[in-house]
């Protein structure tokens, strides 16, 4: 089912706001994981603003959908999502990474409202997601668990322990994503430690794999709709090909921007670039939306 043009435009507007807020947070913090934050932001925008059942006024609502950002270093983009929703005061973003703040670069679920798991050390999130998904089954709850891994993170063997168990337990109430931006701290993923054939690996571990452009809102929605409609007993993995630093042209697809800082000049340049990105995104939605 195609995404309506109005819905697409609504989500693009939200994604644009959140990209700007992520850039602002990086600017306020002095530096941050902006590259991997921007690559995963469209996934979070779509989940939090179209699919997830949550209650801002009741963050621990037992029936809420769970979101686990296994690539916890993207906290600089996740915190804006949660603050924008109202889980936490937006002003807190101005303290991000600063001494004494409740918000460090890897969000603490006991300090930042709305965070379902404290991540940061890589290769933990999918196991936790398997746990919440198994608990849903046992407690007879309908909530879904969404988990997002980084592609570099998939070097960690623990992910594959978790993958094996998700398939073994037939966890169709869990929808997984990999933010496949093909970059990691020290270089390109294929140069540092080859992941390909990446989709085939997930298929071999028992997943139904959808490979999409993870910075295309329409493709994201289509893939998530597919996962919701999944009537097999296999869990779904959505491999999202993305651009590190998506939306800011001079940092895009550059692993050196895994972690970076913006001075005033770069910040203004980045703002201009985000404007252009939004204009292009709107034009695409206008053209391709129905």
């Amino acid at each position: 089912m195609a995404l309506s043009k109005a819905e697409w435009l609504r989500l693009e507007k939200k994604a644009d706001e959140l990209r700007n807020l992520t850039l602002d947070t990086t600017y306020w913090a002095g530096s941050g994981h902006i590259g991997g934050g921007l690559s995963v932001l469209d996934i979070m925008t779509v989940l939090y603003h179209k699919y997830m059942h949550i209650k801002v006024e009741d963050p621990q609502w037992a029936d809420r959908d769970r979101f686990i950002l296994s690539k916890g270093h993207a906290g600089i983009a996740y915190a804006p999502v949660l603050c924008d929703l109202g889980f936490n005061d937006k002003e807190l973003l101005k303290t991000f990474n600063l001494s004494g703040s409740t918000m460090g670069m890897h969000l603490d679920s006991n300090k930042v409202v709305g965070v379902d798991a404290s991540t940061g050390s890589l290769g933990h999130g999918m196991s936790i997601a398997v746990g919440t998904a198994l608990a849903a089954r046992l407690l007879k709850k309908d909530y879904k668990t969404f988990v997002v891994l980084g592609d570099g993170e998939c070097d960690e063997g623990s992910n594959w322990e978790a993958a094996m168990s998700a398939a073994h337990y037939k966890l169709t109430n869990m929808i997984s994503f990999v933010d496949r931006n093909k970059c990691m701290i020290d270089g390109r993923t294929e140069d540092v430690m080859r992941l390909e054939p990446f989709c085939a690996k997930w298929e071999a571990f028992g997943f139904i794999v959808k490979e999409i452009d993870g910075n295309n809102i329409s493709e994201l929605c289509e893939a998530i709709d597919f996962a919701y409609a999944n009537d097999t007993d296999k869990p779904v993995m959505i491999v999202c090909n993305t651009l590190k630093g998506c939306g800011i042209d001079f940092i895009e697809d550059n692993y050196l921007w895994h972690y970076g800082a913006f001075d005033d000049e770069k910040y203004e340049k980045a703002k201009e670039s985000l404007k252009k990105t939004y204009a292009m995104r709107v034009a695409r939605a206008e053209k391709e939306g129905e």
Partner: protein
Amino acid sequence: MAGGMTYTAIDSTSLQTAEIYGQALVELGRAHPEVVALTADLAKSTKIGDFMKEFPDRFFNVGIAEQNLFGIAAGMARAGLVPFLSTFSQFASLRAADQLSTDLCYQNVNAKVIATHSGTSFGQAGSTHHAITDLAVTRAMPNLTVICPADGMETYNAVMAAYNTFGPFYIRINRGFDNTLYKGTDYGFEVGKAVTVREGTDLTIIACGSCVFQANQAADFLEKADGLKIRVLDMHTIKPIDKEAITKAVMDTRRIITVEDHNVLGGLGSAVAEVVVESGKGCAFKKLGIQDKFAPIGLHEDIMNVLGIDANGIINAVREVMKADFELDDDWDDEV
């Protein structure tokens, strides 16, 4: 005690310590539907098979994947279940150390680790299966309560206390049979409070795990043979440690020997030493345990003998400390 199961010494001579844990878990499972059990291909070895039989839907064997075991337990706990996860102490504390620290302790979830085959109790398996650093590792993890029960009775009490206390627990128990120290479960077990197994004024032996029984035997012998009055403390809770009992031992006896089936670096002895030093009072002090080396292979009782942490070794250590005439040092003016 919750559930009303009463164990006696007779049970613990016919049941291995882990089997008592297994039965306690079934008891908890019957009373509390949110209790689940997990293991990593060690259901038989960790004796949680009875739970598996009675509650197959609440039992999860994740295969030989300890990191995943801990992560799944954290996720379950976050969703309202109370997971009891069991594997060997060595794997629980080292193979899955990051998950134990980050997923369980940092998140402060209500999950209980029952780590079996602790210390050198799986003696013949060798050092890959001895856990000689787990107390050092786990007691440095914030939010974690660390317990090393003396026998099956105490294991039962520790497991029940873990259920009744919110937060992550690490309970290390032995493989196989333990000598029975307590006649039953009703002796006033309390997390964080040492049990005074016997009173004394000449010297205090502070022990944990299977070494408590050995310490008590040594004290019994030394009373008859040497006329010594030795206090024996069962320091089952390594964290939070019972500072009051340790400080009192310093003041009352001025001589302390710690005994543990663990490296002397970082475990019970270190935890006690920290309290002794901070008390600011003089005290003769000796740590018995594994002297920073990998332990030999053999039966547990033989290894304990070689390491000097059985009754014989403890007797020798007590006599050595009692012989030292430190009280005659010119600086010594703090005797009470």
